[in-house]
Structures are given as C-alpha cells and as structure tokens.
C-alpha cells in the first residue's frame, strides 16, 4: 500500500503532492498507533494565507484523507482525533517529500514545525467535551478539510456550512427564494433572518433533541450580532456543534476555544442574541 501525501501550503499554486512507496503506510500506522490521547475536537485549520496548513494523507484504498496538522491526527470521519505531544509525524511526512517540495518551501515548513502543538489541541486535552446526543440521522460528519481549502473557504460562509452546501456564493438567507433578509435588529418579524431562512426551506425548532429520521434533516442554530451580522452553527453527527465564521476556517470550538455542546451557551463573541434552533435538510435552496 502506498500513500499519497499533499502538503497544504500554497494559496494560488497547486499544493505539492507525492507518493510514499510501499512501507510508508505501515510506518505511518505505527507512528499513529503510539498516540494514546484522543479528543472530540478536530483540527480547526489555520488562518487563511498563513502558509503551512498541514498534510493530507490518502491511502490508496480509502476515499477520504487523513489530515495531520499541529500535532493533531484527524482520521477524517466521525471518530475522535488523536493528539500527539509533538510534531514528529509531520516532520516524518516532510522527509518523505524528496524533490517534490523545493528547498525554500521545505525550510518554511521546517520552521513552522519548530512550534508547539496547537493551542486548540491542548485545550482539547484539558477540556474534552461530553457531546450531547445527535438525534438527526442525516447530521453531517465534522470534516473541516472539505471546507478549509483555498478554493472553498473564502467563498462559503456560515450559512453554507450550516446547510452543508458549497455554493461558492457566500450564501445569504432568503436570497435563493426571493426573500432575502433586510434587517438584523430582530430575529423574527418583517425582513428578519429567520423568516428569510424559512423561505429557503428551513424550519424553526424549540430544541435539538427531537428525533429526525433519514430524509428529515439536521439541526442548525441562528444567532445575531444585533444590527450588524448573523451567524449559524450546525450539529454534527458526533453530537457537538461546529461553525464557519465568514471566510475563515470551519472549526468546532467557540470563541473561548471550547467544544460547543450547545450554541445557546457557547462563547459567541459579539453575537449575543440567540434566535432559535432550526432544522435544515438536503432539499433546501440557498444561494
């Protein structure tokens, strides 16, 4: 089994990709097997445009890649991440690049790898969250790697992410259905965001505990920075919530770096007004 490794480092140019020959997969499995700390939190990605953003590793027979960054190994599906004490797996992956990564880029990554494991990872270890039960069969899997790429991240916002729909239009509630919100002072009433979302096909919900069978969607939550902006969260299959603040990376921690067990009680910065939980589904129209 060989490994295909992508070094996530560029914004404009295609990222370097190379293949690690036979034996590489076993070495990686061995290295990952030595990590004993797991967490519900996953790598949040990094600030856009900051250069080194980790490695994506794909085993031949698998469809989704493993994501390794800042000491965090994310298997890429609904399983806990592994938190390493150091950056050794990343350093090893870089050594497998050979001539696929030029000297200047290699020096940049080596410099980045001198830093400690991410603060988010350390927070995860100290405050591993007990996620609530996810009652929605259709709830999306938390997989930030899909969203945190140069082609997707800048053009999709919190509404795209909550609805699990990449449109590359920075989707606005109600725009697809001709009832875009006109004011951000109140959650409901004329021109507000909630009725705009209802127009797109979402439905308000008093809580996120009711069972949603297959085809009946998943839970999202709407909050307001009164008079200024709105924001959305979504509940993932693991039970905790995640979000994508504007054009920044998708993540599963709140403004204080904690796992989000309920957006109503999470640290939301200036988005002080909790409007409502809502139910969205694959058939909603957004643009």
């Amino acid at each position, binding site marked *: 089994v060989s490994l295909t490794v992508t070094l996530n480092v560029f914004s404009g140019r295609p990222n370097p990709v190379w293949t690690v020959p036979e034996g590489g997969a076993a070495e990686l499995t061995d290295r990952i097997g030595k990590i004993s700390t797991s967490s519900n939190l996953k790598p949040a990605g990094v600030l856009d445009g*900051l250069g080194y953003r980790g490695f994506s590793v794909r085993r031949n027979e698998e469809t989704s890649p493993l994501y390794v960054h800042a000491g965090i190994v994310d298997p890429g599906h609904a399983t806990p991440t592994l938190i390493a004490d150091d950056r050794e797996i990343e350093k090893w992956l870089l050594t497998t690049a050979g001539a696929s990564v030029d000297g*200047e880029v290699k020096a940049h990554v080596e410099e980045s790898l001198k830093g400690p494991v991410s603060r988010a990872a350390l927070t995860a270890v100290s405050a591993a969250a007990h996620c609530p039960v996810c009652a929605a069969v259709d709830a999306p899997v938390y997989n930030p790697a899909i969203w945190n790429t140069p082609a997707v991240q800048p053009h999709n916002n919190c509404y795209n992410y909550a609805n699990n729909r990449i449109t590359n239009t920075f989707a606005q509630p109600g725009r697809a259905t001709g009832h875009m919100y006109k004011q951000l002072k109140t959650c409901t009433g004329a021109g507000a*965001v909630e009725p705009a979302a209802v127009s797109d096909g979402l439905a308000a919900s008093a809580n996120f505990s009711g069972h949603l069978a297959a085809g009946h969607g998943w839970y999202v939550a709407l909050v307001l920075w009164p008079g*200024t902006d709105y*924001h959305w969260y979504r509940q993932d299959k693991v039970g905790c919530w995640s979000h994508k603040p504007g054009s920044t990376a998708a993540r599963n921690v709140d*403004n204080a770096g904690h796992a989000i067990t309920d957006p109503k009680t999470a640290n939301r910065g*200036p988005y002080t007004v909790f409007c409502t939980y809502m139910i969205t589904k694959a058939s909603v129209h957004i643009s």
Partner: protein
Amino acid sequence: MEIRPKWKFRMTAFTLAVLICCSMIACDGARGMEVELDAFSGRPNPKWTLSPEKASEFLTKIKALPTAGDAPHIPDLGFRGFVLRSGDQSIRVYGGRVLIEAPPRGSRILRDTAGIQAELIAQARSRGFEAVVTDSGQR
C-alpha cells in the same frame, strides 16, 4: 510632418523614463491597496480601497516596524482585524501586531508601533462601521 531622428530619440527616451518611473512607484506599493474589515460571518466583509499615496505611506510605515515575538490571539467571531492586500501581498493588522503573510517564505510578525490599526479603525468608523469595531472592544 516628419520628425527628425534626434527628436525621435528624445521622445523615446522620455517615454521609457516615464515607464520606468511608474513601474518603480508600483514596486513601492503605490498601486492602491484594498482594505478588508474582517469581522462578519454571514454578511460579506466590508472592503474599501486606499489611494496609491496612502498605500505607499502604509507600506513605508510597515517596513520600519520592529519584529514582535508573539502573535495575537485572533477570535473566531467578531472583529478579526484588517487585511490589507496589495498585489500578491496580504497583511493582517490586529491586536497591536502586523502579520505579513507571505508563503512560502512564512509569516513575519511585527509590532504596530506606528498606529496603523488606530488609523484603520478611524477609517472604519468614518465609513459607518462604528459598531463593528466598538462592540468588539477595539477603541
């Protein structure tokens, strides 16, 4: 009317000099600069453009800033600073720091001792974004 070769030469030399001069100014950052107020999640972030003169002034100030040893913690939600874009260069101004993002060479973190963020906040206020920079504790 026929232009004499001597004048032809002078005109060509003048045109070349103008072109070289303009390109040097451009290299110095005087191409105008986009400012993005990075704060929103649902709505698109506000953007405006600085004049070439103002852009050049900012870049000159930034070049003279001292290196900082630490990066600011940038929140997920709310005011995340200003992103200045000129050509391929992207510069984030937040929390008393100026982060020059230039992959693959990596980032440089500088101390904002020239009041760049304060000036950008004043610009944001004058464009009607008072609440955005005030609600987030940036005064």
